């Protein structure tokens, strides 16, 4: 019976995702008719301007929305199970603070110290520094994880690291010039449209690799539902599983943060929505369910941003994900408390 519910839900979500993605292709600051969009997609369009808009701007944006939604939801699911904490999300290890430190150093501190345009550091770009920042935090957490057995201690350290780094970023913001400050703030709001087709060639493989690791981690995640001690006595190599999950989450959430900025609430809310709708804790169902829900919600956020967009004003995606994600999280928390 539950199996039938799952098949129905998977089919429904896939159809919704395709409809929403196609709808998003139609929307934008330039009006292009359905026929024209279809013509571009099947390669029969002759209007160079439309081809450029659809295949160079809108299509990459939708691909980025799907990839980032999938990545954030799966890493959120992993962290919620690993830490056995419903409020854990993709950024619980401090990955976003690492990335934001990298970006803050790049946009705020480097102009201060007069690092020349076009130098090697500059060529790394925002993406590069954000990635290095996330990876640095991950390395630190993994080193601690070898010594520290209690997963909650790691959770607290991750959060404290995040606060400390925020403070450093705050100092940099205070000292930075107005111009560089704006560049930083824009990054923190998150954007799907700054990712180019060239970027996708790096972004997509990183996300896919993270997803492969998350599939490998499905059985360990199910075992971890019983807690780390129980997982150990049913034969789980806990150290190795943590390593796989940390790596996977950094590849997933770290890449999204590097390319699109910190996008909040999707990674926290979608795994809850998956458990709520699919009524299971089995990761063989929850991983694909979170992927679909994540992709759908990000495409919807992008759709909302496009609907609201007039002329050249585009809303930062972070504001929309928060407006969508916060009610879901509140609903889940209230519902759980209510039932107990």
């Amino acid at each position, binding site marked *: 019976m539950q199996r039938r519910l799952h098949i129905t839900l998977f089919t429904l979500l896939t159809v919704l995702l395709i409809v929403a993605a196609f709808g998003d292709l139609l929307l934008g600051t330039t009006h292009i008719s359905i026929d024209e969009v279809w013509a571009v997609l099947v390669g029969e369009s002759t209007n160079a301007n439309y081809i450029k808009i659809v295949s160079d701007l809108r299509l990459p944006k939708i691909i980025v929305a799907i990839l980032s939604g999938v990545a954030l939801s799966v890493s959120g699911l992993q962290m919620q199970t690993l830490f056995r904490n419903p409020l854990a999300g993709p950024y619980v290890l401090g990955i976003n603070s690492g990335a934001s430190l990298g970006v803050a150093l790049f946009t705020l501190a480097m102009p201060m110290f007069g690092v020349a345009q076009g130098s090697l550091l500059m060529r790394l770009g925002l993406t590069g520094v954000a990635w290095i920042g996330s990876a640095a935090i991950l390395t630190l957490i993994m080193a601690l994880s070898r010594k520290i057995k209690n997963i909650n201690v790691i959770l607290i350290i991750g959060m404290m690291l995040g606060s400390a780094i925020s403070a450093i970023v705050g100092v940099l913001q205070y000292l930075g010039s107005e111009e560089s400050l704006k560049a930083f703030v824009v990054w923190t709001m998150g954007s799907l449209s700054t990712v180019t087709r060239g970027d996708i060639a790096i972004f997509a493989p990183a996300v896919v690799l993270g997803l492969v690791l998350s599939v490998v981690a499905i059985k360990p995640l199910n075992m971890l*539902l019983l807690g780390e001690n129980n997982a150990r006595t049913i034969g789980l190599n806990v150290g190795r599983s943590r390593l796989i999950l940390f790596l996977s989450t950094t590849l997933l959430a770290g890449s999204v943060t590097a390319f699109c900025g910190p996008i909040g609430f999707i990674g926290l809310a979608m795994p809850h929505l998956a458990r709520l709708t699919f009524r299971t804790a089995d990761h063989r169902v929850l991983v694909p369910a979170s992927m679909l829900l994540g992709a759908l919600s990000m495409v919807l956020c992008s759709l909302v941003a496009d609907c609201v967009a007039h002329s050249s004003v585009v809303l930062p995606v972070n504001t929309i994900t928060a407006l969508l994600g916060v009610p879901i999280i509140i609903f889940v928390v209230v519902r759980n408390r209510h039932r107990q």
Partner: protein
Amino acid sequence: MIELRNISLGFGERRLITSATTRFECGKITALLGRNGTGKSTLLRTIASLQRPLDGEVFVGGDSTATLSSQELSRRLSFVNTERVDVEALSVYEIVSIGRSPYTDWMGRLDNEDEAMVRRSIALAGVEHLTNRYVDTLSDGECQRVMIARALAQDTPAILLDEPTSFLDLPNRYELCRLLRELAHNENKCIIFSTHELDIALSLSDSIALVDTPQLVHLATDEMIHSGNIERLFNSDFVGFDPVTRSIKLK
């Protein structure tokens, strides 16, 4: 089945148990007794290889736990701890299925044999009526039985339980311990459980392992009752043990 050789336990300078050597056989149920903080849980965790002894070796099924991988050990020994599993949308059937992990493939899929084992374990633990319930809707007693079903699904010759009767009311305590005794005798399991219920331990278990700091005394239940160890350990100004009625009485 389980053999301790010169096991010493403790934290840093503080020794809980020194040089304990004994054996626990299949088909027998052993109660692990001792005052608070004397190392009952530590001993169980050490046997389950969740922590290392300060000294000595634990043998499970003839091999030292130091040489067994966690997967190999998980096919010989299961452990029911005091941790309450409180996960949203996790059904009883799913929990017991996770107990099959040492035998399932990389995705954790159950084959027919696994499913039969899960059903049998649920039936043995007497929780068939809960099969489709979610774990966060269960009472403590029901949850404890489900965790025992999970350990049974693991299909190990040895089962350790850390204070399985805490949080249970009196009828449930006896009911649970009777279940453990039946499992030991009918399924030929080697069962060790720690408890503070002296009367239950004495009336239902085949042998008693008593932590008499820093020694571990392991005797058949009748011998233990007449050895004088229990009176010595559990007597205080207010209560005393009476070997004739096998119970604790107020003085």
